[in-house]
């Protein structure tokens, strides 16, 4: 009847806190046994009346430290929950949970009562919100126990079909027939328990529902939490989250914008199994550096089937291309597409049609592994043309931007390079064992210990690169020739035509200092006009995009500032305020000309940019990148900002800012279901260390012994907004750092009466085929919407995606005007019915 994990009770090695907590769990006669001596009884205890003891399975022995062993991975399974909805074991990620295997036979009397006893015991745990009890039963056997719903909020019943359940039992239970055995011998069967930790590892099995079994199981549950160290402690279950949610929901009653809809994270249902993986510098051997800036993701219809596909960039283990199958489902086609780059530390991705053949090609940046350019053959299979294209720069690259700076009809390329933040020493990535993933031999360059002093050390500067597209898939480095010599710590850039002369200018974000702005002089050179046009910019800029937030026909500019939030701890009550900057000027080096937080530059129509971020409510905490889109279909562009730093900082919410008719932005992430995250998670297991042996000197071993699982806050880095399931509304997908993405599917199409929109795809002829650089104006009645087709889909990302115009109440469009990069202006006469895709081909 004893579990397969260790000697049953190990009071001697528990911490005082652990002993106290364990004492509170004790039930029945065991209390005396434990309180008396703390030693294991020499003879088995008899089971209480009504309990049938099943034949026990062989058990492993605990290690010398008395730790719970790791018995393997809990296999993924799917089934049907008691409410009839589909269920996947992935929903239990981040929870310590107990799998209760219900036998295919009448259960012994009192078993359900014992289960209720277990549930009640778990409900009393301090960590009860992080525990689940899941009873798994065979789908085709309605006669097996009907478990009352009154088992508490932690409990869930899941039906799994016969064969998958049999395999699951075989893989998980040392004796798959445990429980059934007694029945086969003429007695009643018992339920058998398996303990799974928050990292998805089986930590104990074959517990039964006797008093002693329940004691042992609850003790072991506690031990999984004893192993946990949250860095910082408030990363797990932050107390302010519920208060923030309540306050926002209350405030939303006065919102004057449509918000009666929401998002649900449907990653599990989507089939997407990508997980972002990181180097040890951002995890187990944390050192403040630029690896923690994460990765981008980009979308494009790579196989031209009418559905936009997803390309996730990974730091470790290879990037992944997920083909959109429709109806919100995706499949991994990375191997077929040949775009993994598993031998490199990835950073960013950009899709663009470099050869004007009508399909999206792909550029990927890396950390010193060589950037890669892939040519698409039109079916979603790619060829690596990095070397022949002369774009295979190897350095500390970051964002990449395609734009046609010389307007010759071929897309050119700007590559942002951060600066030298690594040494020449290569190290092995060791972060994977906790997740049970194959341990690859991935190497990375160790970061310098003072990475964020890079802007103070000119010798570490790394020039950004500008490549001119010569045609024939060959590029030429024209950085010097075009005067775009810039050595700021640049992570990304955005094209924009600030002065409306038809030539795309370039705004470069500087993550440690002042941003730079280069004006395009008729495609012949770039002229630096940074301080002249933008006297003050954010000090720690991460992401930039221009869009017309107030529908006045000109383009405004939004910039997120991450590094300014580093100067001191920012409490949850200060997130909407600018940073109270504590870095000395000797470090800032911007002569007082910095904004310490996000900046929103409103264009006055004459190209003058006035900073109005606080007036608009555009501030947030620890932002990375953002994406824009008309989330609620009211004709105003909304903003989704990824946020949160992960280890070793507290959790930060992703921000969803609804645009209140161009007057201000309304915090709506809780209102629209983006927060809290699925399952209420704010932190996950980050890495594991063994403080008794190899990791004894690790920082996280201070005051700890044995196995320590370090948890850290979740956080997103980049995002895309697009109509993932082709239902007419805009969905959001993120690339999170060291975890799975969010696949936030909107139900706006079902909830908003008469959702009306227009999708536009451009086909340039004289201009580049993709139409990047075009300006599109859509008119309906007295309303006009203006968008620049810049491809900027988010931080570290550029996508080949459709343009989406929310039309609010307009059921048709009167005219659609395109100003092409070639200089031509083309008007498509209406009426154009709403909810259609318009393909505009450039007239000769």
């Amino acid at each position: 009847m004893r579990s397969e994990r260790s000697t049953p009770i190990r009071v001697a090695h528990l911490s005082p806190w652990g002993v106290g907590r364990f004492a509170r769990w004790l039930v029945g006669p065991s209390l005396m046994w434990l309180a008396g001596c703390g030693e294991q009884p020499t003879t088995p205890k008899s089971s209480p009346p009504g309990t049938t003891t099943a034949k026990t399975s062989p058990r492993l022995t605990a290690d010398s430290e008395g730790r719970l062993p790791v018995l393997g991975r809990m296999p993924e399974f799917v089934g049907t929950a008691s409410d009839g909805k589909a269920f996947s074991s992935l929903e239990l990620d981040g929870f310590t949970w107990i799998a209760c295997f219900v036998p295919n036979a009448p259960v012994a009397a009192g078993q359900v009562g014992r289960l209720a006893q277990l549930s009640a015991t778990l409900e009393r745990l301090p960590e009860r919100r992080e525990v689940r009890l899941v009873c798994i039963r065979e789908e085709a056997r309605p006669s097996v126990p009907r478990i009352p719903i009154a088992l508490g909020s932690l409990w869930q019943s899941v039906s799994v079909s016969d064969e998958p359940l049999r395999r699951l039992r075989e893989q998980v239970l040392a004796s798959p027939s445990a429980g059934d055995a007694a029945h086969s011998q003429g007695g009643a069967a018992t339920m058998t328990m398996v303990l799974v930790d928050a990292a998805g590892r089986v930590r104990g099995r074959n517990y039964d529902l006797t008093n002693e079994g329940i004691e042992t199981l609850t003790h072991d549950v506690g031990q999984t939490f004893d192993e946990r160290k949250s860095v910082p402690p408030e990363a797990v279950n932050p107390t302010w989250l519920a208060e923030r949610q309540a306050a926002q929901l209350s405030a939303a009653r006065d919102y004057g914008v449509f918000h009666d809809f929401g998002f649900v994270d449907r990653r599990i249902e989507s089939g997407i199994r990508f997980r972002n993986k990181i180097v040890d510098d951002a995890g187990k051997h944390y050192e403040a550096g630029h690896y923690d800036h994460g990765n981008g993701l980009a979308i494009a219809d790579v196989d031209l089937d009418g559905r936009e596909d997803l390309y996730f960039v990974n730091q470790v283990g290879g990037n992944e291309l997920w083909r959109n199958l429709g109806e919100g489902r995706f499949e991994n086609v990375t191997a077929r597409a040949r775009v993994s780059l598993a031998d490199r530390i990835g950073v960013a991705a950009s899709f663009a049609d470099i050869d004007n053949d009508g399909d999206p090609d792909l550029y990927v940046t890396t950390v010193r592994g060589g950037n890669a350019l892939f040519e698409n053959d039109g079916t979603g299979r790619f060829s690596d043309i990095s070397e022949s294209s002369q774009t295979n720069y190897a350095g500390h690259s970051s964002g990449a931007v395609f734009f046609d700076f010389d307007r010759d009809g071929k897309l050119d390329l700007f590559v942002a390079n951060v600066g030298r933040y690594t040494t020449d020493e290569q190290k092995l990535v060791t972060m994977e064992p906790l997740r049970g993933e194959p341990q690859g031999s991935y190497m990375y360059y160790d970061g310098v210990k003072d990475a964020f002093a890079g802007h103070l050390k000119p010798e570490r500067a790394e020039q950004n690169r500008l490549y001119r597209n010569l045609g024939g898939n060959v590029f030429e480095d024209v950085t010097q020739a075009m005067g775009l010599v810039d050595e700021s710590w640049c992570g990304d850039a955005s094209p924009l035509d600030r002065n409306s002369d038809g030539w795309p200018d370039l705004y470069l974000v500087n993550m440690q200092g002042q941003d730079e702005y280069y004006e395009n002089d008729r495609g012949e050179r770039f002229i630096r006009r940074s301080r002249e046009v933008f006297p003050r910019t954010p000090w720690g800029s991460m992401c930039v995009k221009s869009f017309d937030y107030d529908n006045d026909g000109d383009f405004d500019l939004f910039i997120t500032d991450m590094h300014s939030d580093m100067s001191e701890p920012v409490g949850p009550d200060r997130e909407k305020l600018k940073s109270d900057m504590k870095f000395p000027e000797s470090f800032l080096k911007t002569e007082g000309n910095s904004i310490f937080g996000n900046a929103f530059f409103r264009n006055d129509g004459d190209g003058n940019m006035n900073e109005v971020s606080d007036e608009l409510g555009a501030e947030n905490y620890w932002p990375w990148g953002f994406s824009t889109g008309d989330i609620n279909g009211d004709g105003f562009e909304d903003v989704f900002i990824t946020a949160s730093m992960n280890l070793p900082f507290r959790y930060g919410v992703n921000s969803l800012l609804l645009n209140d008719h161009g007057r201000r932005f309304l915090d709506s992430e809780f209102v629209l279901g983006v927060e809290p995250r699925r399952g209420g998670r704010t932190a996950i297991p980050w890495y594991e260390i063994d403080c008794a042996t190899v990791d004894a000197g690790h920082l996280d071993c201070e005051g700890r012994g044995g196995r320590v699982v370090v948890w850290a806050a979740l956080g997103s880095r980049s995002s895309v907004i697009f109509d993932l399931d082709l239902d007419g509304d805009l969905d959001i997908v993120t690339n999170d750092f060291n975890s799975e993405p969010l696949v936030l599917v909107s139900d706006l199409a079902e909830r908003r009466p008469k959702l009306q929109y227009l999708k536009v795809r451009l086909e340039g002829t004289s201009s580049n085929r993709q139409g990047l650089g075009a300006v599109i104006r859509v008119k309906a009645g007295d309303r006009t919407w203006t968008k620049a087709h810049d491809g900027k889909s988010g931080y570290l990302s550029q996508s080949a995606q459709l343009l989406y115009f929310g039309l609010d109440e307009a059921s048709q469009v009167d005219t659609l005007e395109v100003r092409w990069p070639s200089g031509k202006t083309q008007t498509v006469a209406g009426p154009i019915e709403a909810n259609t895709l318009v393909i505009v081909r450039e007239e000769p």
Partner: protein
Amino acid sequence: MTGDALHWRICDPGPDRKLGTDDDLNLSPPLHLPSNIQARIILHSRDYIYTFELPEQHLKEIAVPEQTYVMEFNSGRPRVAAFRGDQFCGYSHHALSGNMVVEKWPDYRRWQREARRTGR
């Protein structure tokens, strides 16, 4: 003061009041200063970026490898005041915070002699 492996090492100039001479004292915190002088704390680092802060004086400075930063202030009256230190954008490290002991010259000299004798 030099940040080194998440601790501060303090180099006191010794009786000759000059750094880089034979009578310098290499010590650990607390930081001792004579009262009512114009103090100059020269900040270095051997590895990470560190921050050094005197909350009482509303002063904060950084220490960066291969670079020198200086914090200047009047040490004021005899007292014990806290200083705060941290690793830039990293974990909190209690060992990087400590006390600044400001004392009258005779006491300071006495402390120097004792420090030379004991190495602490």
